[in-house]
């Protein structure tokens, strides 16, 4: 008897105002969540729309094969800036990726020492330092001795990459289950070989995502590049000289008084976005696993 009374009481409770209120609350919060999503997407799509529409009208064959125009010159392109940006990113990755990757491996695989706690802390600090400060650091360290140069810019960008690569690599490696490491170690595979083969290949996708994030981040940096390398309107002329740069194209051309330069700024912005997208797609295809 007691049971049925409980049941009855429970059933009676179902159709209450309290329940209706909960339904209303649910709809309200759902609405707020969608609103937040929408307001986050509006700026993204309006930027993309604006850049694509304006940038697309500047794009022509000439745009891709000609270098930066001089004052009064009609047309001109961003070929040298594409070359320069690729060289700068490549050089920065060449310095930053190995250091970042190895630090990440250290933090994840050998990581419960005082040193690793300190390293982790300083990487967090480093990734919070404003990029202009890193630019000034590169200026003081390199530009002042060998002059405005692509090496200085690549160094500054590498310093920005290292903490991002290290922390994402660490997180990616920590997701590889311990049982996989044990399986390899129990086969008589040395610890370092276990890390290099089994563990890294298990975390490959997540590590590549981290690398791409860091490359995307530095490809669009203008402040540290401007301070350490400056603006350059010619082709690559050696590692101790500056190179042209897409982000700086946007910065310099957008403020110029000439119509065709402003158009070039939009075009450069579009190319920059496509470049980052291209690198990202290429890296994903190249590292696509079989399973």
């Amino acid at each position, binding site marked *: 008897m007691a049971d049925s009374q409980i049941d009855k009481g429970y059933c009676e409770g179902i159709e209450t105002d309290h329940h209706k209120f909960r339904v209303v609350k649910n709809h309200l919060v759902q609405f707020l969540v969608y609103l937040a999503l929408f307001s986050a997407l509006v700026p993204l799509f309006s930027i993309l729309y604006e850049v694509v529409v304006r940038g697309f009208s500047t794009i022509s064959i000439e745009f891709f094969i000609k270098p930066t125009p001089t004052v009064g010159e009609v047309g001109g392109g961003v070929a040298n800036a594409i070359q320069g940006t690729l060289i700068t990113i490549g050089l920065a990755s060449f310095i930053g990726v190995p250091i970042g990757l190895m630090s990440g491996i250290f933090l994840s695989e050998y990581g419960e020492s005082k040193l690793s706690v300190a390293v982790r802390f300083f990487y967090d600090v480093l990734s919070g330092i404003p990029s202009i400060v890193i630019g000034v650091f590169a200026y003081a360290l390199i530009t002042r001795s060998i002059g405005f140069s692509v090496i200085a810019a690549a160094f500054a960008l590498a310093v920005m990459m290292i903490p991002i690569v290290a922390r994402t690599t660490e997180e990616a490696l920590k997701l590889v289950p311990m049982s996989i490491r044990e399986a390899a170690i129990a*086969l008589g595979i040395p610890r370092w070989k276990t890390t290099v083969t089994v563990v890294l290949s298990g975390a490959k996708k997540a590590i590549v995502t981290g690398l791409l994030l860091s490359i995307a981040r530095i490809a669009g940096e203008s402040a540290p590049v401007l301070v350490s390398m400056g603006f350059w309107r010619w082709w690559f002329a050696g590692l101790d000289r500056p190179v042209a740069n897409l982000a700086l194209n946007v910065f310099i051309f957008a403020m110029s008084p000439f119509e065709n330069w402003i158009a070039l700024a939009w075009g450069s912005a579009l190319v920059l976005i496509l470049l980052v997208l291209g690198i990202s797609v290429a890296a994903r295809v190249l590292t696509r696993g079989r*399973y």
Partner: protein
Amino acid sequence: MAVKFDIQNLNAWFGLKHVLKSINMKIEENAVTAIIGPSGCGKTTFIRCLNRMHEITPGARVSGKVLFNGIDIYDNGVDPVMIRRKIGMVFQKPNPFPMMSIYDNVAAGLKLNGVRDKKILDAAVRRSLELANLWDEVKEDLNKSGASLSGGQQQRLCIARALAVEPEVLLMDEPCSALDPIATAKIEALIRKLAENYTVVIVTHNMQQAARVSDYTAFLYLGELIEYGPTKQIFENPKHELTERYLTGEFG
């Protein structure tokens, strides 16, 4: 029969926790030795001490001697990597390498230890899979992912992977606890077959399993070796009261 392991005064710790207390026992060659006992009694730690896997856990420590073919594996000059090649291990949960094919999983131990010759690898993969009673089920799919197999097949794949490096001993840590009865029966049949040429040490929660597959049984309780002897004697005529109470299901 020859003695494969002569364990003398083996103690093991996790940090300050003393999990194995002065274990002394001899493990026979080409026989199946089962380690039984309630949860947390140190069964897993015990077999992990036999191939020096215990020490890879941070804070873990071992003392005492484990003579393997007469050589103390904890001696200063002994390379744990070489020990683990001689003494293979199969874990509680099947753990095939997820990014590798069935073929590569089995070949991994050889490949990563520098064997490049395709003929040798092919032969080793086939031999190991046949030995693990898995060849007929996967011979058409050697390039498929190891993770695409069923749980029981994955466990046999892990056994094949351990056998491919030609160990002398196979340590098995509750190899059937994640498997259904049919898969369990297959693994048990396999264990009997392996005992012809390998020394097998198996940790199990399941007393019937120990009775079915093992020649010798050791009963551990709270880190101490309570009783050790031929399986028939342990099950039919236990000498120690604790063993009898455990076997009759009084605690577990």
